[in-house]
């Protein structure tokens, strides 16, 4: 695996097309996510955001096009979810990332447990690491949360934090957040935005998908705007204000 500084883009997608039957979900999408760049992926429902994410994370292959991870072309034939993990790409889906009734520490390691040769879990070690992730990586402050807490006792923002921390611990180079703030209260949104800042600080890249423009604007370095399967604009944060971005998006909403 290449080390940091040896590559330019965490992910680059070129001329990605995806057809479901005769319907085109993506029509020649080009975009890149730089090293340590937070990219806001914006677009209305049906713009093709989730299709794009599923292609990046290896859930299904594109009909046409090329994917480059760390500047290296990926063989689409062998690309799947496990392969994406190995290449350091991890997605955090809002409702599909944590087992609700399970202990926190189990949630950190499910699918990647630390075990002895017989497959028995090294519980103490896992709990210790879980604690470290919570306090050092995502910066949980007390609040009565321990490694043994059950997930359904946590707030929405804390859950996102757990999933993000997990991705960081397992050395994800690119973390994809799918609508991380859409069901959260303001206080919780701030927590999540802080977690995203932690991703940036740690030198990783992030794709941040959201409807909520103020959140996206605050956190992203670059915006990619998707409309009906096409990238209609790629804008650097320094080139646009939040107000202009909102107006820009409204224009597309009206055009329909």
């Amino acid at each position: 695996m290449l080390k940091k500084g040896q590559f330019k883009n965490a992910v680059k997608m070129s001329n990605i097309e995806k057809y479901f039957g005769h319907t085109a979900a993506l029509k020649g999408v080009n975009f890149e996510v730089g090293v340590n760049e937070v990219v806001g992926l914006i677009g209305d429902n049906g713009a093709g955001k989730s299709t794009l994410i599923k292609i990046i994370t290896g859930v299904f292959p594109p009909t046409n096009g090329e994917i480059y991870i760390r500047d290296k072309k990926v063989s689409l034939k062998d690309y799947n979810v496990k392969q994406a993990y190995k290449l350091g790409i991890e997605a955090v889906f809002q409702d599909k990332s944590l087992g609700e009734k399970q202990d926190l520490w189990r949630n950190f390691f499910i699918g990647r447990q630390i075990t002895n040769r017989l497959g028995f879990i090294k519980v103490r070690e896992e709990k210790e690491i879980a604690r470290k992730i919570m306090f050092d990586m995502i910066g949980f402050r007390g609040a009565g949360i321990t490694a043994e807490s059950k997930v359904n006792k946590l707030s929405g923002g804390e859950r996102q934090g757990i999933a993000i921390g997990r991705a960081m611990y397992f050395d994800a180079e690119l973390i994809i957040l799918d609508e991380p703030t859409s069901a959260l209260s303001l206080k919780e949104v701030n927590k999540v935005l802080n977690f995203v800042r932690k991703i940036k600080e740690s030198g990783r890249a992030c794709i941040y998908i959201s409807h909520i423009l103020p959140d996206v604007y605050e956190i992203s370095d670059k915006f990619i705007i998707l409309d009906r399967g096409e990238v209609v604009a790629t804008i650097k944060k320094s080139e646009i204000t939040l107000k202009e971005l909102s107006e820009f998006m409204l224009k597309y909403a009206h055009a329909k």
Partner: protein
Amino acid sequence: MKYLKQSIAKLVKIEGLTIIGVFIALMILFIISAPRVFTGYRIYMSFLQTVPPLLILALGLTLVITAGEMDLSFSAIIAFSGFIFCYVFRTFGTPWLAFILALSSGALVGFINGWMVAKVGIPSIMATLAAQFFWNGLTILLSGGLSWNIKEIRPYFIHTLFVGRIGGLVPAQSIWGIAVAVFLWFILNRHTFGEQILFIGDNEEVAKVMGVNVIATKIRLFIFMGIISAFAGVLLTLEMINFWTTQGAGLLLPTIAAVFIGGTSIAGGYGTIIGTFFGAYIVGSLEAGVVASGIGGYWTRLVTGLVMAASVSLNIILSKEKGEGLKERIKESIFIKKGGE
């Protein structure tokens, strides 16, 4: 008062404590109502002799239910593997080969169950119900509907090992029951296999996204259950020195009851081995207890129903996190729907 509430909350978190309480209460009740029977040791030895097959089945079923699935075919596996055991033993005279083939037959049935559930996608309750009829039917066909006696097995070591009397008193199968319980506790709570079961039962979608091979795990789980059922079948056959085509049929509902009395959730994602252990002994001791109390054998089923309803309610009420005191929790569990938290 607050201290009391906190300590109740802490105690509830200990696995299976509620059901241990129910078990002790029941035993005290029996001792009071039938002191002559329940202060002697014989009745307990008889429990240790009769309960283990049910206990072992219930322990296996706990894992299946924790994964959010159900198995109704284990009663047929008991008959089928019992038949295989007797057949091989009578034909070849080798008890260990008979034992291994009996377990393999359970594994085979389990594999087919798992394949139907995980690969084909048939809901487990339907797939295993069909399996129950099929394997029971096959057993009847193969055995010609007859029961087979295998009293020649008595002198063999396998008989002593599995159903002998330790010190001329304690039935060996009770120790095997405990061994299986300890083993399955570690599997469920400390092994990757158990953790995968927990997450599949909790939310299959999450398990998949997190890299759990859901299909393979489910097939493995049903094979596991098949082997455990076959083991219970062998124990039962050895204890009775007899195979009959409907052996196991009467164990179906009591086994399921034992798991639920123990506190395992039908919703999946949570299972308690310790709870099931005591649940099985509660179910297994009710009949003798009720009869010995002198209220008559007709009451047995009614009392089983009451005990099951009471234990399940108690488990749900005590595990409610919302509501400060016991009173609020009871109120909540009665007036607020399950999904309304």
